[in-house]
């Protein structure tokens, strides 16, 4: 009895015991060198069917400096086992790095993965140049609010690996505005094989912020070729702490309009170099260089006694590294004038200094008269006043009811402005042209009847060719010969301007010089023999291909 009770208690404990999930992970290699790629495999075995996995990449939080991306998973819908493969790159710092414990979420249950440890040691032999690697290019200095910082991710191939593609670029940049300018461009020759993605970064807030970038590049072992498709993905992750400041107020010129970078005043252009007094011209100031060209406010150009300045709408052209400021100038005085000075202050973030730029003014020759100029008239007060005969004028008596049959209409608009006037005329002209063209074509065809005759003959020859082919497939040798002869007669008759039925072997020879006379005789005999005599024997039926070739040759003859 006691024994039975102990067995029952044992069974009950077994039923009440919680089913445990078995999670096993493996890093290859177990110990890595700094920056060395590694593979992480996580195997899960459960007591229940797991179902599909969800949000795997979101749960895992690799330590700082480590790049880790899910590269594949094996989960069967009716299985209680799952395998996940991650590819990663070890951090640069030596020591043990811990990936914190995280959850693997399946359709049926959540499995907890214990923390994973990776040891980075400098004792491991690893030649960095052999592997493909990613580098972040970003200036290592204080950045300024509104500055345009050009950055790049260089994915450089190694001695044993080549970078063939990249994807999945993600960025986290609070306090920055980022725009990718070019993706997957080939690296310059000096940097070797690889790709690069360039981006523009503009700080928008003062302070320190973290800039994170990660993505995946596809690497290929050995030589990349049509037969070597074994690509592997390799993640990269960058975290950079950036300090952002405002452009210093000390030494800032009053005309500074937000220009940060290194610029060159390319020059001025005018739409007309010999305007009249009062005639507006367009002045364009072209600024080039490396910096935040799009964020610069156009410099103000005050009017003076020589020039009046009007606001001009600037048509932005997204030219490479170029900005154009446009003004409308109106000359107020005649003579040789110089265009107003366009001045600009810039801040160089590398040297942290302000500098001034001035566009060299242009000399413009303004024609016309000065507004204040008065034409002086010399008059002799003693001279007798010349009596000017005054014209006899006066208003005519109005005749409001007078009408004219010709002069009618409205002063508001002319007939040419009326809707449909020009379109109706254009339509009518088009119809006349079309009718004339059609008449011309029909007249030409009527004058050259041979065009239609030859066209008809070609149609007959094609039909004969098709019939001959059909007869040949049926094994009807007489029908075959008849079809070929009919086709030959139709084609030859069109050439010789004669009736089809009257054409003989000799006529065919005239049109097709060099045709085999014996073959033609045989063909005609087989085709027409039953008209004149009992059917000849078909045992000596010739080469069908050669017969068809004759017909095809005639069809191809122009």
């Amino acid at each position, binding site marked *: 009895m006691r024994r039975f009770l102990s067995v029952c208690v044992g069974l009950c404990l077994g039923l009440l015991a919680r089913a445990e999930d078995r999670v096993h992970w493996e890093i290859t290699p177990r110990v890595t060198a700094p920056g060395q790629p590694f593979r992480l495999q996580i195997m899960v075995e459960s007591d229940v069917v797991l179902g599909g996995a969800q949000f795997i990449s979101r749960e895992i939080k690799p330590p700082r400096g480590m790049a880790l991306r899910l590269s594949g998973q094996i989960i069967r819908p009716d299985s209680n086992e799952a395998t996940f493969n991650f590819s990663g790159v070890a951090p640069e710092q030596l020591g043990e790095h811990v990936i914190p414990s995280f959850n693997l979420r399946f359709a049926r249950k959540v499995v907890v993965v214990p923390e994973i440890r990776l040891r980075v040691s400098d004792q491991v032999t690893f030649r960095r140049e052999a592997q493909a690697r990613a580098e972040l290019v970003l200036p290592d200095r204080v950045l300024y609010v509104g500055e345009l910082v050009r950055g790049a991710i260089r994915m450089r191939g190694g001695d044993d690996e080549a970078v063939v593609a990249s994807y999945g670029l993600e960025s986290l940049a609070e306090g920055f505005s980022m725009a990718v300018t070019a993706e997957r461009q080939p690296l310059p020759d000096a940097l070797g094989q690889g790709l690069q993605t360039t981006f523009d970064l503009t700080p928008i807030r003062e302070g320190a912020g973290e800039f994170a970038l990660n993505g995946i590049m596809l690497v290929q072992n050995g030589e990349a070729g049509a037969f070597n498709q074994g690509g592997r993905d390799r993640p990269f992750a960058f975290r950079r702490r950036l300090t952002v400041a405002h452009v210093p107020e000390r030494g800032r010129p009053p005309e500074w309009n937000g220009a940060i970078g290194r610029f060159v005043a390319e020059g001025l252009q005018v739409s007309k170099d010999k305007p009249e007094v009062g005639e507006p011209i367009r002045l364009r100031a072209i600024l080039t260089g490396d910096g935040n060209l799009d964020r610069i406010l156009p410099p103000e150009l005050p009017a003076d006694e020589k020039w009046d300045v009007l606001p001009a709408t600037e048509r932005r052209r997204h030219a490479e590294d170029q900005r154009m400021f446009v003004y409308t100038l109106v000359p107020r005085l005649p003579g040789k004038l110089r265009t107003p000075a366009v001045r600009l202050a810039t801040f160089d973030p590398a040297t942290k200094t302000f500098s001034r730029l001035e566009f060299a003014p242009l000399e413009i020759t303004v024609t016309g008269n000065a507004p204040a100029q008065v034409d002086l008239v010399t008059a002799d007060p003693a001279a007798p006043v010349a009596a000017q005969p005054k014209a006899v004028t006066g*208003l005519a008596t109005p005749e409001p009811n007078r009408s004219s049959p010709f002069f009618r209409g409205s002063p508001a608009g002319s007939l040419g402005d009326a809707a449909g006037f020009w379109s109706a005329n254009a339509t009518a002209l088009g119809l006349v042209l079309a009718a004339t063209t059609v008449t011309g074509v029909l007249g030409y065809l009527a004058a050259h009847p041979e065009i239609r005759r030859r066209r008809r003959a070609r149609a007959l020859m094609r039909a004969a060719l098709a019939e001959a082919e059909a007869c040949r497939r049926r094994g009807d040798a007489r029908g075959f010969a008849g079809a070929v002869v009919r086709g030959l007669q139709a084609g030859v008759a069109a050439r010789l301007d004669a009736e089809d039925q009257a054409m003989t072997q000799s006529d065919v020879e005239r049109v097709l010089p060099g045709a085999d006379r014996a073959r033609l005789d045989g063909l005609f005999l087989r085709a027409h023999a039953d008209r004149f005599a009992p059917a000849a024997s078909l045992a000596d039926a010739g080469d069908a291909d050669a017969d068809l070739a004759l017909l095809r040759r005639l069809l191809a003859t122009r």
Partner: protein
Amino acid sequence: MKTFALLLLCWLAPLAAAETPGAAAQAYARGDYAGAVELWSAEVRAEGVTAARLAALGNAEWRLGRKGRAMICWERALLIDPRDPVALAGIRHGLDAGGVERPKPTAVEEYASFLNADLWLLLAVASFWTTVLCVAVPRLRGRPAGEANQWTRVGALTVLALCVPGLWGGRSLAARAVVRRAEVSLRLTPTQFGEPLRGVAEGDVVRTERPLNGHVRVRTADGKTGWVRAGEIEAVRGPGLPADLEQKAAP
């Protein structure tokens, strides 16, 4: 003969009726020019614009001392009928006795004023189509063109060539405006504080060029160029009656 007499009567009836002075003409005759303006304006609105009505309206406006409105009426009357005697007399009077200035017509404009713009266009289109049909019809019929056809072609092409300066001149005549404000300055630049070059008087006719910044570049009768505000002038080509500049635009 009887039918012909009836037709002649029908044709003459409107002319006889035209001789009867209307209420507006009576008001004008007794010196009530404001009343005449109102009545003729109402007639224009109700029955449409004619050169004679506009010319008569111009006379009444001139009598009221509104030079700008009067010149607009006469210029528009001449756009419809370039030889309207009342409008021509009114403009001549304005130039000689009224102190109004008007650009001297160019040779092409003088030529164009033989007909109005619509008639020039109709003539050009008719001659063009005559030429086209003279070329196309013999081709469609498949016969060579006869001597009469050749002469018609030459004639139509000649008329077409003669229409070109008429069309050009009509365009140039339409690109004019009348100064409507009393004291208008011709400015050096098209800006609010543009330097005044000289004054132009109400009723002066100017040639218009390009608009910019709410101003229009104009050339006066003596060849001076400058800018005036767009609201200070009224284009010669426009609706029948002169614009009421005092009336504010609807919100």
